[in-house]
């Protein structure tokens, strides 16, 4: 029983080994470097995929870019240098933290504009409503007379019924 179990486990290892080999293994000089690698893998975007970081994607291109990031870190490049290197080749699409340019400014100004327009709308409407109310609150003799006429009519009708 134990023997067959062992054989089964060995077989399992043989089956799973190739999958382990497919995960790329990187060795780093320091914990800090490893941290930088993780950060870059998460902030660089895979150009082939629409919304995956190079760390998330298993596209061949993403693997290549991870490898390149690793090599550059090993060569002592700073994070910014690596990001600039990627932008020089793939454009701002490659980073999840795009710089402010005329094209991307809508990302920053858009939400602000929505807030300003929204509050502006509320403000203007509240002022208008106040104006309407103040007009209707003016009471003059004309209205007083109309009201009296109406009340009298009502009273008369009530008496007639009784």
């Amino acid at each position, binding site marked *: 029983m134990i023997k067959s179990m062992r054989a089964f486990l060995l077989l399992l290892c043989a089956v799973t080994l190739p999958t382990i080999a497919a995960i790329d293994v990187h060795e780093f000089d320091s914990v800090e470097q490893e941290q930088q690698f993780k950060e870059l893998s998460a902030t660089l975007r895979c*150009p*082939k995929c*629409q919304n995956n970081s190079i760390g998330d994607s298993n596209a*061949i*291109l993403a693997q*290549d*870019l991870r490898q*390149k990031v690793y090599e550059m870190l090993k060569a002592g490049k700073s994070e910014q240098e690596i990001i600039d290197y990627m*932008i*020089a*080749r*793939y*454009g701002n*699409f490659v980073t999840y933290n795009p710089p402010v340019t005329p094209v991307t400014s809508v990302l920053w100004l858009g939400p602000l504009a929505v807030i300003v327009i929204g509050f502006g709308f509320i403000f203007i409407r509240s002022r208008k409503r106040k104006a309407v109310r103040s007009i209707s609150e003016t009471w003059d003799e004309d209205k007083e007379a109309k009201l009296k006429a109406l009340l009298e009519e009502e009273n008369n009708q009530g008496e007639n019924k009784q």
Partner: protein
Amino acid sequence: MNRNILFAPLAFFLILVVVFGTQLARNADGDDPTKLESVLIGKTVPEFRLEDLAEPGKLYDQSIFVGEPLLLNVWATWCPTCYAEHQYLNELSQRGVKIIGLNYKDDRNKAVQWLTELGNPYLISLFDGDGMLGLDLGVYGAPETYLIDANGVIRYRHVGDVNPTNWEETLQPMYQQFLQEAK
């Protein structure tokens, strides 16, 4: 209260319908939103030293792109669209269009065999086994075709297959223009 304001959401909805409708129509016409603009437009071909595909040891560098307008076609045997466009590239090369091939992250033997079997439209075939020139060019999916003018400056990048429609509509006019400029 102004009753017209009640129609604002409807108006907003209709505007959105028009915006999305226009973009969908454009997509149907071939405007692929996943296409990336190349940042290398207006820059010279990056420096490289690569071997000839069929003759290991024979080296080329970026100077091969200077002199006359060229097409640089990035291809690989693992890429089905490359297969689809190959016959048209053969036809273009027969018509005198000068094309340089960049075999990208491929098996060398398979690539040589492919050219022997399907015909070779390339003046020069570069072998970029580890994809490093591809990386410098910002290649994100084969096939890609770059239009390079006589000064070795990248002027346009086309992603996807070259076919009679896009050749006649976009690529050929530019290629002709670069030929004129070179005179």
